[in-house]
């Protein structure tokens, strides 16, 4: 509780336009120890960290979603507005507001700064990205800015850690001053005129404009070359995900195998030993080995975001998205969905049009998320020959690419159908700032990758661990009599027998039916389930030690394997995605719709794949 007698600084918040370099500044101020959660009731990400003041005191610093104004046009902007004004339930209004300005785009960013300063709360201005402004030929006088704005202005370069101590000092001092009464309220167009006057006064010299950006845009937004470069880049990403990760994945796999050997050597044969080797190590181990691929994919997505290329991709894709009734804005959530549908669905909050947003949410699970990679990778490695079909193009990578394309094409067709039926309405607009190109800061990249990897490992340690152990129990009891197969007599085996009847027409065997049940929790569990199943059903240790891929090759036909791949292009096997869709659409109607149409498509396309492959004699 806060003592009303001793006014203490508890919290500060970073606010500013999108692309002001807020996140980089936040990372620089708080370091690696950040808490990422959601604001209660909405799925806007709440990023908080600890900021050390010069006195040694520590306050909570939050990074509020980027906003162009306090009059919200998106759920993101609404959170920022409510938190600043202290209207967000359960969230104290920050004691000090830190307005982050892009020094190289002063006039535009000052408009929001003026609106925030008008509130009369203790405010500090961080004049950020001063290095980029200098590169653009701008010389800015922070003192002139400070006297015009009437609040402290601190020049900062987040990526070089310049001005951080001064900013912390200014935050500490800002709170000591009494809050001023709110200043006179300006109308938006007056505020823009004031911003223009202040910016003109603070810019001492201005030379050649951003030539580099213009030149890069001429290449990357070129009508023909631009899309070509984008698709080439995406192709490289998927090749890298598959080929680049292999040595690391192999290394992790052998570590898991060695751990299993150690346990087998150290413990006498018992149920507990089996639980550890067959349940925990086979299950969790088979998923953890995909960490390298997930890191590589996120690396590319983070680099595209940090460099400013992601917005260009949205520009290039807008026309195509408009063709199915969406806009380029949907491209970013959909691209994020390649990593995971959950951040993807959450990123739809930047889409202003509600029907657009709903459509994007409904098709986001069709983007091939990283949880499908373990499934695809295992099946491809086992059934698709490792050879090249052209210079630098591996057949395995090509099949993976085709699976991604299948998801995209499926999503586009579904969007088109939805936009002319259940989410019918006006064509959506596309208005978006294309940020300046920047070199990504290695530190921010590493931090972003670490946060993603940690989320993945935490899932592996909790959901996948639990599911693996439960599945092992279901597979191991009741115990088989001598001469009986353990899987056949187990509880799980009996449940799967029922499901197998349903999936038999699309070429699935009983083991696959068994894997689909726990994979409802998360797709990658399918791999660990198969690993656990084959480990339990192995008749001796040599057979159990066989790698999963070899087990599959011995037990599945090629059409069956291909049908399994087709199933996972569509199947909505992820409880978290369904939960997020429920929260984002405020009810069960749309998640139920999503489940039904995706399972329907999965069943149909797995069937088509299976029977086509059989007919072709594969």
């Amino acid at each position, binding site marked *: 509780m806060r003592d009303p007698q001793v006014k203490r600084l508890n919290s500060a918040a970073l606010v500013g336009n999108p692309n002001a370099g807020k996140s980089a500044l936040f990372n620089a101020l708080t370091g690696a120890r950040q808490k990422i959660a959601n604001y209660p009731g909405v799925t806007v990400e709440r990023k908080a960290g600890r900021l050390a003041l010069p006195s040694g005191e520590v306050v909570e610093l939050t990074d509020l979603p980027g906003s162009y104004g306090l009059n919200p046009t998106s759920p993101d902007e609404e959170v920022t507005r409510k938190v600043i004004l202290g209207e967000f339930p359960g969230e104290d209004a920050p004691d000090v507001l830190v307005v982050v300005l892009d020094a*190289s785009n002063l006039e535009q960013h000052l408009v929001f700064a003026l609106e925030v300063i008008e509130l009369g709360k203790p405010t500090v201005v961080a004049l950020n990205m001063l290095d980029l402004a200098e590169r653009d030929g701008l010389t800015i006088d922070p003192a002139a800015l400070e006297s015009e704005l009437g609040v402290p202005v601190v020049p900062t370069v987040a990526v070089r850690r310049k001005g951080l101590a001064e900013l912390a000092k200014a935050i500490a001092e800002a709170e000591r001053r009494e809050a001023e009464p709110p200043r006179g309220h300006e109308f938006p167009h007056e505020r*823009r005129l004031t911003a223009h006057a202040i910016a003109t006064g603070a810019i001492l010299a201005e030379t050649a404009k951003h030539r580099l950006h213009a030149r890069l845009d001429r290449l990357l937004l070129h009508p023909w070359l631009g899309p070509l470069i984008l698709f080439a880049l995406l192709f490289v990403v998927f090749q890298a995900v598959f080929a680049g990760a292999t040595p690391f994945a192999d290394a992790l796999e052998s570590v898991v195998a060695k751990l299993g050997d150690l346990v087998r050597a150290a413990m006498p044969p018992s149920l507990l030993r089996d639980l550890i080797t067959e349940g925990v190590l086979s299950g969790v181990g088979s998923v953890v080995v995909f960490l390298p691929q997930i890191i590589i994919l996120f690396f590319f997505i983070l680099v595209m975001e940090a460099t400013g290329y992601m917005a260009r991709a949205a520009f290039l894709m807008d026309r195509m998205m408009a063709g199915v009734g969406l806009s380029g804005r949907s491209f970013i959530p959909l691209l994020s969905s390649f990593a995971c549908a959950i951040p993807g669905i959450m990123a739809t909050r930047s889409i202003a049009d509600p029907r657009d947003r709903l459509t994007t949410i409904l098709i986001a699970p069709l983007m091939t998320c990283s949880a499908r990679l373990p499934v695809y990778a295992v099946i491809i490695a086992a059934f698709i020959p490792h050879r090249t079909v052209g210079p630098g193009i591996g057949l395995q990578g090509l099949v993976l690419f085709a699976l991604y394309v299948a998801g995209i094409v499926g999503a586009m067709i579904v969007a088109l159908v939805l936009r002319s039926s259940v989410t019918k309405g006006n064509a959506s607009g596309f208005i978006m700032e*294309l940020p300046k190109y920047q070199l990504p800061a290695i530190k921010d990249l590493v931090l972003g990758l670490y946060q993603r990897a940690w989320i993945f490992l935490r899932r592996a340690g909790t959901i996948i661990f639990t599911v693996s152990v439960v599945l092992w129990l279901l597979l191991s009891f009741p115990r088989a009599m001598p001469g009986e197969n353990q899987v056949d007599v187990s509880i799980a085996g009996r449940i799967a027998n029922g499901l197998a009847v349903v999936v038999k027409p699309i070429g699935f065997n009983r083991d696959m039916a068994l894997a689909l049940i726990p994979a409802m929790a998360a797709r990658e569990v399918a791999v660990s389930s198969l690993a656990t199943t084959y480990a339990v059903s192995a008749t001796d240790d040599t057979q159990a030690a066989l790698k999963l891929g070899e087990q599959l090759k011995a037990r599945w036909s090629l059409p069956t394997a291909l049908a399994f791949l087709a199933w996972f292009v569509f199947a909505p096997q992820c409880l978290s995605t369904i939960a997020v869709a429920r929260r984002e659409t405020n009810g069960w109607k749309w998640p139920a719709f999503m489940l039904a149409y995706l399972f329907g498509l999965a069943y149909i396309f797995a069937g088509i794949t299976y029977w086509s492959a059989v007919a072709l004699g594969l």
Partner: protein
Amino acid sequence: MTLDLVPIGKSARIVAIDWSLLAGEEGQRLRALGIDQGAELAIAHRGVFGGGDPLAVTIGRMTVALRRSHARAMTVDMLA
């Protein structure tokens, strides 16, 4: 003339915007980016399909992407 007819590389000043042609909060979003009556901007890029949709305009030190349908709502004077 309207903004969508301005050739690439040319600058123009917005003299009027027909807000009724802009849906929902689009007008507010444009204003938040400084695209309003009296603003000066230049056409930087166009898409290749659909008659050059979308377009990228530079305004001040910013580049903003918008649709041709938005540009059609803006009456402009060409600048030399």
